[in-house]
């Protein structure tokens, strides 16, 4: 057996006996590490829960949807209608879902006295309706016919319920949907174009805003864009700050672990200094002894932190935390989260930090320690 293995085995046996004789020293180190682990895990779990909840809420409330309203006058109308096919394709390729409606300045009269919106759709079949006039309504029997009046002309429209795409728009309960080519004459004097986009990311949303601004500037288009971009950008900043908070939590845990375990390690080292100096006087290098101390302290810190994480996991899976308003802790899958590795890394850093006083102590000349 190599001599340094014998030394390390002897030191470990010595440590084990010391821990058995004075368990308070080991227990206090483990307790501090597990408490820091618990606190760090709670901070990480809280931040992760907030992040998840934010994502969930954003997805539920269609935060990534964009509405663009464009006022098109008679001079631009023809040109825009004719080239709009490529522009619509461009919008469709930018967003996950897109719906572009053309609304002439006049509405359609239904039931003699009620005026409803008349909307044109370029490729109406792609949106689930037949290529004809459709009265989209959830109040009338589907499949029935209704007579409506458009600009003094009476025409028949087929009643169909709103598709999922139109159900999202809670403001419209009943409107007349027509293929674009059938109402093109009504659009010649100008119209309002409504573009509804559902993008997949904040980056796509920024792109849509940039495109719209470019159109406004270069083509003098009168476009009004509505989206949650400003709020989402702030939320993104908050998410970045959360990332820093996670790092700060991990580094803070490491620092607290390092300082407290370091203080305990220093107290232990003062007891062991004589022994380590004696072993050094046999010709064993400082590095060998420091590596041993690093391994011991890191092992204690990591084991302590793992105990803390285990306790949190146990508490969240067995106790009813709803009374404390912490039921979210049970749903978060704490140990599966990648952020937990920061805490373990923090523990290793803490173990390393705690060896600094030992490293400094080992520099003292042997002759000043041994008597």
């Amino acid at each position, binding site marked *: *057996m190599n*001599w340094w293995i014998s030394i390390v085995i002897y030191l470990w046996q010595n440590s084990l006996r010391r821990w058995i004789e004075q368990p308070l020293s080991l227990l206090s180190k483990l307790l501090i590490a597990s408490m820091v682990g618990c606190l760090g895990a709670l901070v990480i779990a809280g931040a992760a829960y907030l992040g998840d909840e934010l994502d969930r809420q954003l997805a539920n409330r269609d935060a990534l949807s964009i509405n663009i309203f464009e006022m098109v006058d008679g001079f631009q109308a023809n040109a825009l209608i004719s080239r709009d096919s490529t522009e619509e394709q461009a919008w469709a390729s930018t967003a996950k879902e897109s719906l572009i409606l053309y609304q002439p300045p006049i509405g359609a009269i239904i039931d003699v006295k009620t005026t409803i919106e008349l909307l044109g759709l370029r490729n109406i079949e792609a949106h689930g309706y037949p290529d004809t006039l459709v009265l989209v309504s959830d109040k009338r029997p589907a499949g029935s016919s209704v007579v409506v009046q458009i600009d003094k002309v009476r025409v028949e429209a087929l009643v169909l319920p709103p598709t999922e795409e139109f159900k999202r728009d809670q403001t419209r309960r009943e409107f007349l949907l027509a293929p674009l080519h059938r109402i093109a004459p009504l659009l010649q004097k100008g119209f309002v174009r409504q573009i509804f986009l559902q993008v997949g990311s904040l980056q796509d949303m920024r792109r849509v805003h940039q495109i719209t601004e470019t159109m406004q500037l270069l083509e003098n288009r009168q476009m009004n864009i509505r989206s949650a971009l400003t709020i989402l950008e702030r939320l993104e900043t908050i998410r970045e700050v959360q990332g820093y908070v996670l790092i700060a939590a991990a580094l803070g845990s490491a620092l607290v672990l390092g300082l407290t375990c370091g203080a305990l390690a220093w107290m232990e080292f003062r007891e062991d200094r004589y*022994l380590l100096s*004696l*072993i050094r006087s046999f*010709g*064993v290098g400082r590095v060998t002894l420091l590596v041993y101390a690093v391994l011991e302290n890191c092992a204690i810190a990591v084991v302590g932190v793992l105990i803390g994480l285990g306790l949190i996991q146990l508490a969240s899976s067995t106790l009813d935390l709803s009374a404390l308003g912490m039921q979210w802790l049970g749903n978060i899958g704490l140990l599966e989260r990648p952020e937990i590795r920061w805490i373990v890394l923090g523990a290793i850093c803490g173990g390393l930090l705690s060896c600094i006083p030992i490293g400094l102590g080992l520099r003292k000349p*042997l*002759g000043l320690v041994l008597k």
Partner: protein
Amino acid sequence: MKITCHQICYTYPGGHRPVLDKIDQSFSPGTTLLKGYSGCGKSTLLRLLGGLIRPTSGHIEAPDFPPLGSKEFLRKDFAMVFQELNLLPLASAERNVSLSCRIAGVPATNGSEWLERLGILEFSKRSVETLSGGQKQRVALARAMAKSPRLLLLDEPTSGLDDKNTEIILSAIRRFSENQDAICVIATHDHRLDPIAHELVDFHRHLSVAE
């Protein structure tokens, strides 16, 4: 093989007066006794010779050794028995000796031989905590001699020992000096050690020691 001190001075950290002041002394193979009253600096000189502390000024010349205090020197060429013996706690006498031999790269049988010569082979399996003062002293000496060092430093090796134990230690030192081409320096004020000395240095008279 020779170790020579040139004008060495030493002041302990935080101390106001030097413990040793401009010491000139050579040490050759054989047994040298450093004699003097308690606190005159004998132990400090031993530590300086082993490179365990560095002189405040002056230097120690040891051309036939690796740098004093270096790992290589401590591992193979140096052994010291301190006043407080410094045995490895929670280890048996045998382990104390064998670990030192293993680090020095000498056969473990050396350790057994010296344990036998010093009459402690029968206790060698026992933890050093359970041994008497005289037995501990012999274990410390066996550990030092077993690694066959070229520089052996003994600090008060017989203090507090009865005549029987002292005789065992004297014969061990004598045997070591006879069989080993080594410098053996013993700091003591015990006159029972005088017969084994090849050179006797009255620390107070021969050396320039700070008052």
